[in-house]
């Protein structure tokens, strides 16, 4: 897959919810090649940061030649990203890694927190074939609903505090959904503990499942081994190159 390091202009940047931002960047080469589940490494302009920051590709517009990212401000780097204004040029390295399987006819997307960002690209790509199950601590974290609605058939929600949807986690609601619908793929992105829970249930119900992992990254190109993980087969893999998307049984012991 051809990768590029593109100097792209920021077309739009705004805050979607407290500390969650959406940035859209003109980067035609990347927009053309990107597949759902892939990510980019953003170079923070200004010269104060040594490492790039990995973010999933949340939306792509082939026509405009843009890619959009949705990210949470958690530290210095994402803070600096959020302070960039439209018109600023940012270097985007990507698309990186491997995306989700695109063969599914009826996929269920399961996301928690910022994991919902790369799943959005998948939802758009699936053109109404997918459902989404989203979990958050409270209703405020489920601002994603409105973003997903145009792209999916159904939106299912869980909140830890019961302030909206089913009280509990995405794993609370998943068995019910798997009984009701004939999903042929589950793709999960969110906290590792959530993905592992989802993968176990998918395994029980015999639905193929992919998960997307996060690791600190240096190069993003498979060269530095910052992001190495163990796989169940004993082979070492690199999240940036062999992932970030893996079949659940590759990375989780589901027995």
């Amino acid at each position, binding site marked *: 897959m051809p990768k590029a*390091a593109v100097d792209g202009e920021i077309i739009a940047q705004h805050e979607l919810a407290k500390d969650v931002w959406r940035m859209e960047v003109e980067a035609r080469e990347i927009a053309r090649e990107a597949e759902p589940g892939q990510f980019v490494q953003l170079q923070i302009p200004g010269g104060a940061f*040594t490492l790039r920051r990995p973010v999933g590709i949340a939306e792509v517009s082939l026509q405009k030649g843009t890619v959009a990212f949705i990210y949470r401000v958690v530290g210095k780097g994402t803070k600096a990203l959020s302070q960039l204004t439209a018109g600023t040029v940012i*270097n985007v*390295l990507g698309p990186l890694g491997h995306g989700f399987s695109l063969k599914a006819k009826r996929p269920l997307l399961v996301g928690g927190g910022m994991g919902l960002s790369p799943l959005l690209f998948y939802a758009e790509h699936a053109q109404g074939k997918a459902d989404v199950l989203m979990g958050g601590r409270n209703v405020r974290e489920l601002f994603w609903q409105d973003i997903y609605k145009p792209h999916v058939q159904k939106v299912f929600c869980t909140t830890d505090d019961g302030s909206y949807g089913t009280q509990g986690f995405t794993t609370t609601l998943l068995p019910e959904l798997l009984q009701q619908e004939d999903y042929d793929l589950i793709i999960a992105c969110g906290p590792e503990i959530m993905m592992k829970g989802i993968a176990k249930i998918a395994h029980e119900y015999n639905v193929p499942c992919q998960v997307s992992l996060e690791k600190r990254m240096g*190069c993003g190109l*498979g060269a*530095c*081994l910052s992001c190495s993980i163990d796989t169940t087969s004993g082979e070492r893999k690199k999240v940036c190159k062999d992932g970030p998307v893996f079949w659940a049984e590759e990375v989780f012991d589901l027995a």
Partner: protein
Amino acid sequence: MSRAINMLDKRLHTNLAGIYMNTPVLTASGTFGFGEEFAEFVDLSRLGGVMVKGTTLKPRRGNEGVRITETPMGMLNCIGLENPGVDVFLQETLPRIANYNMNVIVNISGSTVEEYGILAEMLDVPGVAAIELNVSCPNVKEGGIVFGTDPKAAAAVVQEAKAHTKKPVILKLSPNVTDIVTMAKAVEDAGADIISLINTLLGMEINIHTQKPTLGNVTGGLSGPCVKPVALRMVYQVAKAVSVPLIGMGGISCAEDAIEFLLAGASAVAVGTANFSDPAVTMKICDGINDYLARRHLESVQDIIGAAL
């Protein structure tokens, strides 16, 4: 394309201990994989060489937990020499990267003096341009740190490697020493063909939320622009004291940085951490050195090596 580049880079051609290099710009071990990962961004044959990932006799899993973290103008790593071992390197990797037409310099680490000899001998094969002895990786408990800080031990490693290979032997110095010059002289006397420096400075970070060290290995190696002043000072001191060629590295991220190292007496430079922020940075550095020479009407990079000494 390669022909055009050769014309362009005429001023940059160089030769270190018999290794012909199109440019004096190499990539530092552990930061550039086996070169192939950067093939979309870099004309690998234009590099002076690719110092490939640290290789050991047996496969190594490396360290658990968080392996890198960003620091002010730098980063800490504790990869811990993860690698599939020399056998896989020879059987799978080397044949695969053979057609890139680049100088492959194999960075090796041993737990004992003998292991360096075994590795050097195994790697004395076509397709390997030189061996770089890593005696300074601060992450490995079984010996690495000792070879790198004791002149006698470092000299022993060089002798052992030289006795087992006809390839040029590069010794890579650790900066975590009181007296870099004594180290350099010892390894020169022991027969090192080239000295490369510096490896990473030992550092650490604490996560104030968890109140625990950030890195899985507690400490890690500091690299990136932040270490450049220390690296440059060491290159300058060593260049004054030894006569073997030096490959200078530590924080180089632009042509100006590379030129500083050349002026300080390095015959070539290697770029590490900067590849992460710009995968094509080495090409820009080649161009920039070329421009610097052209602006001064100099025919060859040799004309500036050691000019500040």
